[in-house]
């Protein structure tokens, strides 16, 4: 992975947002991406306190959590009547609201922003539904280029076991049931998630994803994520901990002998 330490301030992909001074953005933007049920939110929950331990202020955010559109999206999904273009744009609205009202202010204040999904999930869902790639890439082009995009990659079989063991049922949208792919939820899930993974894989190179093997045990995935984040976010040991370690380590060694 490229070392982003000391890189210039954050910028956008294609289109500048009106009224944003990009030079002011001093924080770090870390994106966790990947298909449904790959374990992103579990990892984000663990990464936040880990980063805070090093003295970083952390904002965690995720899809459909905006004050503006979060509720509307949930209601629209409950009705199962969202068309593919409408869904894409509703999520883009949600993203814009969070970007301008949460993420950018946090970056301005020097936070580490940890986001569970980003434009890539919105794009992947649109592309998997047959929408025009250029259209969605340009539409999402006001997004900030993150310091790191950590793509948690797994095979469909790994996702299935997580869905069955963890949730006990298949979800309408996660199974892409609006696409009328298969005879039932299982078949539809397999086809839809396979195409999503394919689309994510295709984006990995052009968008510089750092691929994390998410089929490993949770702790191993956590270690890989921490290692990748350490390359981007300053991880100086906080003064307090440093003092502790200096005294604690020799003692431990002695005890081990």
């Amino acid at each position, binding site marked *: 992975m490229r070392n982003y330490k000391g890189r210039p301030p954050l910028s956008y992909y294609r289109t500048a947002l009106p009224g944003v001074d990009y030079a002011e953005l001093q924080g770090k933007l870390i994106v966790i991406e990947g298909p449904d049920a790959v374990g992103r939110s579990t990892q984000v929950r663990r990464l936040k306190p880990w980063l805070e331990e090093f003295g970083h202020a952390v904002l965690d955010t995720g899809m459909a959590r905006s004050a503006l559109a979060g509720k509307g999206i949930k*209601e629209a999904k409950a009705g199962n009547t969202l068309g593919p273009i409408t869904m*894409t744009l509703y999520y883009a609205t949600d993203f814009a609201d969070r970007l301008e009202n949460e993420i950018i202010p946090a970056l301005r204040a020097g936070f580490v922003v940890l986001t569970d999904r980003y434009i890539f999930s919105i794009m992947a869902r649109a592309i998997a539904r047959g929408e025009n790639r250029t259209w969605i890439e340009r539409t999402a082009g006001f997004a900030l280029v993150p310091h790191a995009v950590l793509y948690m990659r797994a095979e469909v079989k790994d996702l299935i076991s997580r869905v069955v063991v963890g949730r006990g049922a298949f979800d309408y949208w996660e199974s892409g049931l609006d696409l009328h792919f298969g005879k039932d939820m299982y078949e539809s899930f397999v086809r839809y998630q396979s195409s999503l993974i394919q689309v994510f894989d295709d984006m990995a190179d052009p968008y510089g994803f750092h691929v994390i093997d998410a089929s490993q045990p949770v702790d191993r995935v956590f270690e890989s994520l921490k290692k990748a984040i350490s390359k981007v976010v300053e991880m100086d040991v906080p003064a307090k901990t440093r003092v502790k370690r200096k005294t604690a380590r020799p003692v431990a060694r002695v005890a081990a002998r």
Partner: protein
Amino acid sequence: MQVFLQNRCPGRLIVVEGIDGSGKSTQISLLSQWLRRRGYAVTFSEWNSSPLVRETTRRGKKKEMFTPTSFSLIHATDFADRLEHYIVPLLKAGAVVCADRYAYTAFARDVVRGVDRSWVRNLYRFAIKPSLAFYFKVPLDVALGRILGGRDALKYYEAGMDLGLSRNIEESFRIFQGRILEEYESMIEEMGFHVIDATKSIETQQKEMRRIVVQEFGRTRPPGVLGTEVRVAELQG
């Protein structure tokens, strides 16, 4: 950049555009009645009217949460929902769909709000190209005179108050509408608008619109375009 998708459906899409107070809603209403009397199956779609996003738009406006980008995107979401669930199926069925405002409204308003011109053009690339797009050309003072006299108080976003043009809401509205007017004027050729002189009498404008419709659609209903009597016959059969 290619704007809009070609209409490959048998139905026809008629669009009216113009600043507030240009009289476009009156004209499209008269035109649709006339088309109905001529045997066309006519339906309506109004800007910003999708039930799916209504609550979100209401919340954003009430709490003044919108940025130019999220304002643009929520209107595109509204438009997409109406297009996917209403306009396209009706065009497939062969109806004449009359739209009071279309993507051009976003092209004008959102650009005035500071959104990138080519970004918003791309945003609406999934829209269907109208069969006819009428632009109601009117001087700013005439439109303002029609509006500011007999109507409810201006609303925050309607007056472009989010742009900080003026603390006075009426003054803000005036400046905002003036800029939108400039955007419309610059689009006339690019978008192939049929320009209607909206300072003329209502009857004269309507006559001109009907002339253009006949010129485009022909004197008899084109094959595949649904008529009111056909629909009744089908229901009875």
